[in-house]
């Protein structure tokens, strides 16, 4: 598993698109979301960065010819899928540190007033990411890359619109109503979805032609 993580991080670092995304996504979000609640903005950054890193590395082994390499190495298919699901927490940790430092610098330079560490934001981001990947990962395994990408984009846009609306309307809008849902319940739902999705992905990947 260390090998795949090393591969994924090496590829993320060497990808120009990912570097551009890592560097410019936060300023872009700050620019378009001046009226956002800082906590929601922080939450959106955590979710987006983790999600982008997780899905990018997930697709390395499903699309393109490089998939033959990893699947020819001494690793069995179950391990590969389990790694993919566990790696979201590694990417999440990387994101918390990276976004924390980035936003802290923005704060220090007084470019904007943003949260650079917010426990509630972190706690809300974890189940959101788990639910997100629970839907997206099996679709990448089950469907052709093009179909999976369409589902991925629809989900991504839906999340973005919902988050933006919640954030924009602030306490007057949907955020207030979402507040009635206890974090424990959301986390429990996320955990169940995550485990079911993992089992489904293991089954699908085990019987899939590479």
């Amino acid at each position, binding site marked *: 598993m260390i*090998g795949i993580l*090393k591969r994924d991080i*090496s590829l993320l670092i*060497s990808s120009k698109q990912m570097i551009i995304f890592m560097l410019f996504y936060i300023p872009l979000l700050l620019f378009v979301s001046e009226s956002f609640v800082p906590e929601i903005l922080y939450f959106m950054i955590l979710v987006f960065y983790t999600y982008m890193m997780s899905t990018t590395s997930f697709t390395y082994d499903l699309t393109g010819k490089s*998939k033959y390499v990893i699947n*020819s*190495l*001494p690793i*069995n298919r179950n391990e590969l899928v389990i790694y993919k699901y566990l790696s979201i927490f590694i990417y999440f940790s990387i994101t918390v540190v990276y976004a924390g430092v980035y936003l802290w610098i923005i704060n220090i330079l007084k470019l904007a007033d943003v949260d650079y560490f917010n426990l509630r934001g972190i706690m809300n981001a974890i189940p959101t990411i788990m639910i997100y990947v629970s839907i997206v990962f099996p679709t990448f395994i089950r469907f052709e890359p093009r179909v999976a990408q369409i589902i991925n984009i629809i989900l991504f846009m839906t999340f973005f619109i919902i988050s933006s609306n919640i954030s924009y309307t602030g306490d007057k809008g949907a955020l207030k109503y979402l507040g009635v849902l206890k974090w424990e319940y959301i986390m429990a739902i996320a955990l169940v979805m995550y485990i079911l999705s993992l089992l489904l992905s293991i089954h699908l990947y085990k019987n899939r032609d*590479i």
Partner: protein
Amino acid sequence: MDYILEVKNLRKEFKNFTLDNISFNLEPGYIMGFIGPNGAGKSTTIKLIMNLLKKDGGEIRIFGKDHEKYEKEVKNRIGFVYDENYYYEDLTINTMKSVVASFYSNWDDSKFNEYMREFDLNPKAKIKTLSKGMKMKFSLAVALSHNADLIIMDEPTSGLDPVFRREILDILYSVIQDEKKSIFFSTHITTDLEKIADYITFINRGKIVFSKPKDDVLQNYGIVKGGLDILDENARKEFIGIRETKVGFEALTDNMDKTRRMFGNRVLIERATLEDIMVYSVRR
């Protein structure tokens, strides 16, 4: 007999192609050439052996073990080289090496560095900057640096110039000096196999035509040349494939002695090359 690779009644169905119950065995210490025209099923067979495709029937045993059940253990002892570069183009040779090395329990860094020097490869170079030949050499270096007992190669010499091809064949020949190691080598450049293979397995339209020692194949198969006057119904049945012209015919036989007895001096018989065997069998 302990085989290093056993393929038994292997079956895989696609919409437009079926790999139809193919069987063959490879013993330790030998090179098996896997020949066939494009689309015959060579790459499909290799992908099934590597468990990249899921079989619909049959059995694959590598080092005496089921290739799915013991996938990790088995793959730890396999070196693979595919027909083109499947490594990540944006990574350097060194980074790619360190990624791959972490998967193998017997990775030998000094051996890899030796190959890097021998192949004149710069470890800091990005894979995308390498020529096709260099990429193939890198793949070969990776395949040979973890003490693999079985090297599986899918058309490794296709698209390479004769100098590169000869270099690769020389390396394979030196690998096989260790009697425990075997090489399974698919190609449609049959002259490469005439130089190094011990066994030839010929596949056509998803079926195995033969799987025999190379010397038996080259001893028994022959090209028969003669006039059209002897090419009657009975004669035709004796041949695997026939090419007719206005002045005569050329045909492939898999039993030169029988053909000699049947036609005597009326025909000229020459030894067939692997290419002849492939071309005439496909034309059948």
